[in-house]
Structures are given as structure tokens and as C-alpha cells.
């Protein structure tokens, strides 16, 4: 591919950008107030569409001309639904926890009136005297936005807004560069694949580029399947063009003519927005034949996967794309030399591709200046579990877990104690408190037995049982195992059955040894990444929480009072209030009765341990407790 007519590319793009900029200025600097509703999947499940409806309805009663926009996820999922209001002459304010009623009030009081309603505000997007800036929140001390820069700030269904924010400039620049120079730039930036393993992106591209053959493919892996991970979904839903631009640059570099976005069918909104984005990009000549007037042509098709976890593995993904059952096969050959239809294929994660435009735009040195020595740039995490501020965060590599969980995430809710953090989903590990001050990057996580994985971060507190957590993840992997290889098909099943026995109090101490040996063998002996990483949750919990395993096996006790078979509910007679019978009425199996002193007693033989009595017991008495092992319950008197 020769570089022809650089000026033409530049001037064609300039026209597109000028148009986009003038539209953006008209919108942003115009006299109309703007109401943005954060309506990605997370916002919608919190009620963003109802909020949007209420806003529109309330506006329809007034005379004012207001621009209402649907934007993506800002990352503050804990405070969804979010509404951002920009009113000329006032600071732009982010409002959180908005209900349809609050939305109506905002429209009446602020849009139609003058009350900026600070009681609903999370913060302002710019410094001002009325409302504290959102950037004063402790999380922004640590966060650095590259991928999340635009999300929640632009309408994902309007390509011009992306272009106005600097989008597709990198593509125009790249098309005027030699592919080798782009590889060199990406190499210098130190970009490593964000799918989990952290392989050098430049190296992958180079292998594919130098592989013989005219036909090459580029695949964007958006088959995000880890429980508790939603970064790729948020990016595709909120800023799809950043991924498409990254794909275009990658395709130009490796010499691909066709590309696919392999996205799971469970992400309908992501699929929908990707389709709209592709259509709009094609409409502007940024996709399709002779992109920006150059000789480079590329098209992208979204492909909906059926939701098999194993299809996130490269070779299984390719099999699925070819219409075959999604089963992995042995590597090498790696897809970069022989992939889709046997042709050289690059498969990159959504985030990896989305990093490419900023790298080309701002230069490799800028990217390489962020992060640690061997892991450059930022890391996007999906914070979930027992943490106050659930949602997305983006921090430079090398940030510590403590900073992420306590400063960005706001710590553990209800004053509970932090116990562990599960990183990297079913392939990752559980790290204890002692790992909190470790700077995290690809290599440090691997050292302690976890892995970056796709970036899911599930925080666990003292009420979470680590044996149960290991069992949960193993149940997931054994169900998602394709069943092709012995180690994964039967090994994970055997491990699961041992863990089930532990959580039911049927375990033996020698099982612990067998479990460890088997976990090691499955890790080394499995065919693909799913099997090889599946023992990680078991190995790390055994390494850091061995005492809990021992308590389950030797004392039949669950220290976190979580394992159903190892606990019993008990009503403390000294705390039980004689005149109250809240628990008696709620008990689903009539296991609670009053004794002669009118103290309530649970018939352990009838009790199904549903926990309703514990919830029902009024806070001022707090008489219902959980005991483990169950035989700690004192024998009933009278």
C-alpha cells in the first residue's frame, strides 16, 4: 500500500472535521440548555429511560427549546441514573441518583427556573462558585482518563460529536504514515493487549503483517464474559467510534481488508450502537472503499456470539466465526499466522483497539510516560461487589489496589472489613489485604497468582466465604468448559465436587492436597486458556486463606457464616422481646414458635435457613444470629 495524495487525505478529513466542529459549537456553545441522560445498559437498568421520558414529558409542557441527549455510561454506575445539565451562563453539573420525580423537579426548578438544585448534584464539570467540582472527589486524584475520556460526554449515536472531540484525526494521520512506522510507534508506546494476557500489540501486528498471503483479517474481541466485568460493553455502548477508529488503524497497519466485531448477543445495546456507528462512519467515507480518498479499503461486520465463555479464547472465537462449534484448538499456529479461514488474523480486545487512536494522536512517548516500566498506559477496571462506588474506573498502571478500592471505590459499605479482591474473573485470583499496597500491572498480578484478565474487580468483605467464592468461580468455569480436553472437562468437575464437599462440611483434609495437585495439573495440562487459568481462584484462595479451608474441613465451620449447610439461625433468648413476634409471622416454614416465657425459638429440624427471620427481627432487638457450626446452637429448654 503506497501513501498517495497525503494532502487529499488531509483536506478530505479537514472538511469532515470542520462540519463536525461547527455542529458541535452550535450545540455546546449555543443558547439552548442541554440535558444529557446517561443511558447505557447500566443506566437503563437503574431507570434512565424512565428519567428520559419524564424529562421529555416535563419539557413538552413548557415553551423552552432544550436539547435532550442520550449519552453513554460515565463510569459512576453507583449513582445511576445520571443526568448532566448544561445551561448557558451556568456551570455544567452532573446530577446523580435521579428518579423520574427528581428529573421533573430539575426541569422545573433549574431549566425553567433558576435553582441549580445542589442537593441532587454530584459535582460540576468545571470550577465555579456555586457547586463543588466533581474533580474534587478523592477518586480523581488517582484516575486518569484515556479510554473513558469521552464516555458519558458525547452522544454515541452521533459521529460528529466524536469527530469534534478529536476523533478520526488519528486515522487521517495514520493513512499518511507507512504501516511499519505505525508498528514502530505502537511498539514505542509499549501497548500490551488488554484482553488479559498482556501480549505486545506491536509484535502481534508485525507477525500478522509479515505473514505471507494477500487476505488478512482483523477481529475485535468484544466477547466479554467474566462475571462482574463490563468495561468493553461500556466502551462499545458509549464511545463505539473509538473502537472503530482503532480497528481502521490496525487494519491499515496489518493489511486487512475485512474486519469483524465479535460481540456477545447478550449486549443488544452495544450491538445496536456499533451498527449505527458503522453506518455513520461509512456514510462519511471513513469506512468502506477508498477511505478518505486513499487506496485503503476496509469494512467491518458485527458478529453476534451466542454467549459461550470459551469463545473469548482466540481459536474458539475464530471457530465460532467460521460457523463451527466454538471449540479451541492447539496453538501454535497462532491466529496471527493462521487464523480465520486459515488466513493471518489479528484479534485484539476492545480496549486495546481503543488505545490506538490516542497513541497515534498524542504520540508514543506520551503513552509510554504513563504507567510502570513494563506495563504502559492506564488500566480500566469494573469495580463491583462490596464497594461503595461501583462502576468503571481508569487508573494508570502501577496504582495500588488500596487506592482503587478505597479512594476511587470509596471503601467497603456498611463499615464492614475488607477481606479480599477478586481480579480477572474466573481466570484471576483472590488477593488478600496484604496485597493492597502492591502496585498493579500485568506482571505484578501474575506474580501473586492472579491476572489482569479483562479487568473485572470484585471486592469481598468479611461476610464472604472464600471457599464459597472459589466454588462459585469453578462452577462457572466447569459449566463453560467446552468439554474437548480431559483436564478441563473432568478436572474442573472434580475440583468443583471437592469444593462442594467443603462447603457442605463433607470434606477431608487429604482432599485439600488432592485439590492442590489437581489444580496444578489442570493449570499446566489444559488445552486452552480457559482450562489453564481456571484453577487460579482455587489456588489463590488456598494460598491466602488456608485457615478458612481448614475451618470448613476440620471444624465444619464457615468463618464468614455464609455456607448454607454449615450455619444455623438462632434467637438469643436474652435479646428476644416478649411482645414482638415479627419473626414468627415471616417464617416461611413455620419453624418459629414462642415458648412459655414468650421467647421465640427456632425448630432447627424445620428451619430451611432462608434468613427471613434475621431480616425481620427489628434492629433494636437484633436477636437473630447465625452460628457456625450448626451444633453450636444450645439445646432448647422447656
Amino acid at each position, binding site marked *: 500500500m503506497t501513501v498517495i495524495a497525503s494532502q487529499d487525505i488531509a483536506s478530505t478529513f479537514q472538511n469532515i472535521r470542520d462540519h463536525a466542529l461547527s455542529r458541535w459549537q452550535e450545540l455546546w456553545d449555543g443558547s439552548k440548555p442541554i440535558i444529557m441522560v446517561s443511558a447505557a445498559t447500566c443506566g437503563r437498568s437503574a431507570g434512565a429511560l424512565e428519567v428520559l421520558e419524564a424529562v421529555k414529558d416535563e419539557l413538552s409542557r413548557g415553551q423552552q427549546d432544550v436539547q435532550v441527549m442520550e449519552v453513554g455510561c460515565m463510569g459512576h454506575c453507583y449513582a445511576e441514573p445520571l443526568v448532566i445539565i448544561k445551561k448557558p451562563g451556568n456551570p455544567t453539573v452532573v446530577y446523580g441518583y435521579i428518579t423520574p420525580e427528581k428529573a421533573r423537579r430539575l426541569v422545573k426548578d433549574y431549566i425553567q427556573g433558576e435553582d441549580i438544585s445542589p442537593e441532587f448534584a454530584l459535582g460540576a464539570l468545571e470550577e465555579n462558585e456555586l457547586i463543588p467540582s466533581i474533580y474534587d472527589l478523592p477518586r480523581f486524584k488517582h484516575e486518569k482518563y484515556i479510554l473513558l475520556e469521552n464516555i458519558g460526554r458525547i452522544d454515541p449515536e452521533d459521529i460528529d460529536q466524536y469527530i469534534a472531540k478529536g476523533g478520526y484525526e488519528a486515522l487521517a494521520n495514520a493513512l499518511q504514515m507507512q504501516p511499519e512506522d505505525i508498528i514502530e510507534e505502537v511498539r514505542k508506546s509499549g501497548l500490551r493487549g488488554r484482553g488479559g494476557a498482556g501480549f505486545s500489540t506491536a509484535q502481534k501486528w508485525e507477525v500478522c503483517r509479515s505473514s505471507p498471503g494477500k487476505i488478512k483479517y482483523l477481529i475485535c474481541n468484544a466477547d466479554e464474559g467474566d462475571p462482574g466485568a463490563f468495561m468493553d460493553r461500556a466502551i462499545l455502548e458509549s464511545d463505539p467510534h473509538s473502537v472503530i477508529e482503532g480497528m481502521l488503524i490496525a487494519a491499515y497497519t496489518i493489511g486487512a481488508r475485512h474486519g469483524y466485531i465479535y460481540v456477545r448477543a447478550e449486549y443488544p445495546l452495544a450491538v445496536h450502537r456499533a451498527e449505527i456507528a458503522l453506518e455513520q462512519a461509512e456514510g462519511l467515507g471513513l469506512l468502506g472503499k477508498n477511505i478518505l480518498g486513499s487506496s485503503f479499503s476496509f469494512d467491518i461486520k458485527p458478529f453476534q456470539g451466542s454467549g459461550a465463555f470459551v469463545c473469548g479464547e482466540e481459536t474458539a472465537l475464530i471457530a465460532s466465526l467460521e460457523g463451527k462449534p466454538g471449540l479451541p484448538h*492447539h496453538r501454535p499456529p497462532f491466529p496471527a499466522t493462521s487464523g480465520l479461514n486459515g488466513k493471518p488474523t489479528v484479534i485484539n480486545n476492545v480496549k486495546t483497539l481503543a488505545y490506538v487512536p490516542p497513541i497515534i494522536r498524542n504520540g508514543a512517548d506520551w503513552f509510554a510516560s504513563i504507567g510502570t516500566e513494563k506495563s504502559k498506559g492506564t488500566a480500566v477496571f469494573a469495580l463491583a461487589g462490596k464497594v461503595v462506588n461501583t462502576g468503571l474506573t481508569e487508573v494508570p498502571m502501577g496504582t495500588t489496589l488500596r487506592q482503587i478500592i478505597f479512594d476511587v471505590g470509596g471503601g467497603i459499605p456498611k463499615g464492614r472489613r475488607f477481606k479480599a479482591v477478586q481480579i480477572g474473573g474466573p481466570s484471576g485470583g483472590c488477593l488478600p489485604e496484604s496485597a493492597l499496597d502492591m502496585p498493579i500491572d500485568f506482571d505484578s498480578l501474575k506474580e501473586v497468582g492472579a491476572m489482569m484478565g479483562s479487568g473485572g474487580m470484585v471486592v469481598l468483605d468479611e461476610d464472604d466465604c472464600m471457599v464459597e467464592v472459589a466454588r462459585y468461580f469453578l462452577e462457572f468455569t466447569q459449566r*463453560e*468448559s467446552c*468439554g474437548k480436553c480431559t*483436564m478441563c*472437562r473432568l478436572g*474442573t*468437575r472434580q475440583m468443583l465436587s471437592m469444593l462442594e464437599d467443603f462447603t457442605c462440611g463433607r470434606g477431608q483434609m487429604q482432599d485439600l492436597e*488432592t485439590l492442590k495437585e489437581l489444580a496444578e495439573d489442570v493449570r499446566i495440562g489444559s488445552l486452552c486458556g480457559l482450562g489453564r487459568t481456571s484453577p487460579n481462584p482455587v489456588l489463590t484462595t488456598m494460598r491466602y486463606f488456608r485457615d478458612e479451608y481448614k475451618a470448613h474441613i476440620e471444624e465444619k465451620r464457615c468463618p464468614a457464616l455464609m455456607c448454607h449447610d454449615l450455619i444455623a439461625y438462632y434467637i438469643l433468648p436474652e435479646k428476644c422481646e416478649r411482645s414482638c413476634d415479627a419473626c414468627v409471622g415471616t417464617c416461611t416454614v413455620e419453624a418459629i414458635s414462642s415458648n412459655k416465657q414468650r421467647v421465640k425459638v427456632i425448630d432447627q429440624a424445620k428451619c430451611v435457613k432462608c434468613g427471613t427471620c434475621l431480616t425481620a427481627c427489628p434492629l433494636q432487638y437484633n436477636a437473630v444470629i447465625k452460628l457456625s457450626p450448626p451444633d453450636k446452637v444450645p439445646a432448647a429448654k422447656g
Partner: protein
Amino acid sequence: MKTVSLTIDGKAIKAPEGQKVLWAALDNGIYIPNLCAIRKASEPYAGCRLCFVEIEGRNGPVTSCTEPVAEGMVVNTQGPRSRRLARTALELLLASHPVDCAHCAKNRSCELQKLCSLLGVKLNTRRFRKLVHNLPIDSSCPNFTYNPNKCVLCSRCVWTCRERYGVGVLGFAHRGFDRVVTTFEDKPIAESGCRVCDECIEVCPVGALVFKDGRKGTPGCAEVKSKTATS
């Protein structure tokens, strides 16, 4: 064809370039445990996880069915790490296999028995829990029975039926522990277009596919009845 020289278990051998270590070893009288290997298949299935070997200069054990021979390569088929993996894989298979050899038509020609004696594993291994399926036995065909509970999912019958003879009656269904060799819509084999060529029975390494008249299949059929390559 170009040949390369390598050493397997101290024995210097020559093998055609591109050949996988497993076949180079088998061709030279060195046995490496295997169940799913098919010489004629276009790419190795690599599912049974038994054929691990250790190669000098490599970090960990590798499956010999996927590893091409290389000039000067030094292979050890009996290294402790590779043997440990093979034993674990075999024990996993046995733990999910109804071990009832005395009543099995495959008794004494079963490859699981052979592997057990080679790897020093007891047929009734107690290391793992017994997790067997309880699926119905298919005796619809006049001359053979299919017992899915005994199947080790080596894929030889599926490959033979589909790739070698182009019939495609047998295939895989379901995932994980539930994965099973079956027919389209789980119909009895006789109603699925089976041509009763008996080739799947010949290649089955265990007692999953057996002749009703007690005839034995070709023993030690790692070669999968290849006309050109019977050693």
C-alpha cells in the same frame, strides 16, 4: 522429503520434517500414551492430554501430538512432570468411567487397561471422586452397541465417521462434563443414516462401541486403520 534427526529417550532417530513427535516416536517403537491421536487427521485433536513429553530447553511438558520434530531436539517421554500429567488425565478418565472390566466386551483389548499398566495407575483409582454418567445404551444397530457412559470422548469415531467416510452420523453435543458423542437430535444410531460400516467400532479404544457378537476391534488402533501407515 527432508528429514530431521532427533533423540527420543536416548535413541537417535530420523523423522520427516513437519511430523509430530508422537508419530516419530511410535514409528520407532517408542510408545507414548495417547487416546485421541489420529495420524491422518489434518490437525491434531489434542483432547486426551495423555501424550505429554518433556523436551530439553522447554519450560514445561508439551503434548507430543502437536509438537513438530526439529533438528537436534531431545525428547524424554518418561520425565516425571509429563508422566504426572498423563497419570492425572488417565485417573480423571477412569474416575468418570464405569470400571466393570469383567463384564465388558473390550476386556483385555481396552486401551484404558493398557494405559493403566503402563503408567502404574489402578483401574479403580481412589484419588478422585467417581462421577459417571447414566445415559441410555443404544443397541439399535444389529451388530453393535453404543454405551455413552464408557466413552472417553477421544473423537476417533466422530472423525472416522465424518472425515474419513463422509457419513457424519456421529458428532459431539453439549458442553463441559455433559459433552457426549451422539447423533443428530439424539436419535438411535440405526435411525440416523448409519451405514453400519463398523469403522467406528474398530477405532473405539474403550468399551463404548462394541460388537454384539463379542468380536474384538483392531487392538492398539492409535493409527486408526490407516492403509498406508500400519507399523
